[in-house]
């Protein structure tokens, strides 16, 4: 495509200035796995591409009880990182299953979140861990809880002049799991996915967070379902009721991958599996 600008700043300050100047006319490019197919298929003609791969934003650190991930950290890095595997297990599982080796090398966690697909695997795990999204602009930085970050299919609260800088994950006290269901065993978008964080005291559930993906215009936090099991003993029947509640709050659609009817059925089964695994119930 002719006359498309390209910027590849190596300083964050310079990047924020460019975003301030160009705003929506500068399309942020990290891995490109969601963006470049649209360009290749003539669905999107960007004015300018702002490549953020030279800012060194690919790191995973532990700081003040949180895991801090640079927005440009690749899915492959996350899947292979022991810190994440141990302390944010669901995110490592989501990264591991999110795509093929080649796409995982370039797809970034920031891109996964900013693209705001309702079925995003990594964002689903982050939602179950109450992650916070650090945004930066010339006006300063701000942190948004991921549960408040998505406003619609492909839409977020990020303003055009803001760069998604980092993702902060409060290290979960309990166990986190991630389950995904696609239309084949690998290299498949999610027909439904779920991530669960459970803090158990023996058979009793002390804390619960349930995230459900591909079942509504945005990723869902199933607070009603969480309330059902908090403070209760969690056995297989409780898990099934909780899953039914979680799915009841969803509003899946029909599309070429699956029907809403199927998504509700399969989504419910998936949540039961996730709850059972997180609470070590063997059914």
């Amino acid at each position, binding site marked *: 495509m002719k006359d498309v600008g390209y910027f*590849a700043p190596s300083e964050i300050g310079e990047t924020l200035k460019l975003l301030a100047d160009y705003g929506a006319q500068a399309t942020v490019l990290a891995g490109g796995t969601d963006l470049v197919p649209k360009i290749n298929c003539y669905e999107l003609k960007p004015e300018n591409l702002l490549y953020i791969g030279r800012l060194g934003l690919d790191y995973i650190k532990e700081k003040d009880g949180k895991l801090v991930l640079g927005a440009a950290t690749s899915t492959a890095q996350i899947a292979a990182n022991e810190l994440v595997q141990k302390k944010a297990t669901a995110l490592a599982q989501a990264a591991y299953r999110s795509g093929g*080796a080649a*796409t995982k090398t370039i797809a970034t966690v920031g891109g996964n979140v900013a693209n705001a697909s309702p079925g995003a695997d990594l964002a689903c795990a982050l939602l179950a861990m109450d992650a916070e999204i650090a945004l930066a602009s010339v006006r300063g930085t701000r942190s948004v809880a991921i549960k408040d970050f998505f406003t619609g299919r492909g839409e977020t609260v990020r303003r055009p002049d803001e760069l998604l800088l980092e993702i902060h994950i409060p290290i979960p006290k309990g166990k986190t799991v991630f389950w995904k269901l696609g239309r084949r065993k690998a290299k498949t978008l999610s027909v439904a996915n779920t991530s669960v964080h459970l803090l158990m005291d023996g058979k009793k559930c002390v804390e619960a967070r349930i995230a459900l993906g591909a079942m509504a215009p945005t990723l869902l936090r199933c607070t009603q379902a969480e309330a059902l099991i908090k403070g209760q003993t969690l056995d297989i029947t409780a898990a099934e009721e909780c899953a039914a509640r979680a799915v009841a709050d969803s509003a899946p659609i029909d599309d070429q991958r699956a029907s809403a009817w199927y998504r509700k059925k399969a989504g419910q089964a998936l949540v039961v599996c996730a709850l059972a695994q997180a609470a070590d119930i063997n059914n």
Partner: protein
Amino acid sequence: MKHVLSFTLNGAPVDALVQATDTLLDVLREKIGLTGTKRGCDTGNCGACTVLIDNEPVNACLTIALTVTGKTVTTVEGLVEGSELHPLQKAFHEHGASQCGFCTSGMLMAAKALLDKHPQPSRSAIVEFMSGNLCRCGTYLEVIEAIQAVAGGK
């Protein structure tokens, strides 16, 4: 407007005049003329365009060309060392891991990246790592055999 792209390709420095939306696949095939890397879907779904950037497997069709500035790119044409086929190329040929051959270059580059990371991968590790490379002729079983043969040092 055009941009100058300089990177290392199969061990040699190359330059190319590119548009900002040209992908590495466009540049390799249509500007530099190395057509071993194939275009199967342009959306990162088939893996036929897999190349290595700094020895990591990548979809060349998803990679904006300008982002490889200063990086090293390896394509199937870079596997042959002198006149000697790479062990994976020999094994793919002998085990019948290529029928129509259109996905084969992508398979070889992914297989090389796998063996560089895990010299002795299990069958399930091979399946997981290679599952991003689609093949409609159905050479999966032979590709697994060929990778295992190379890993086993046969």
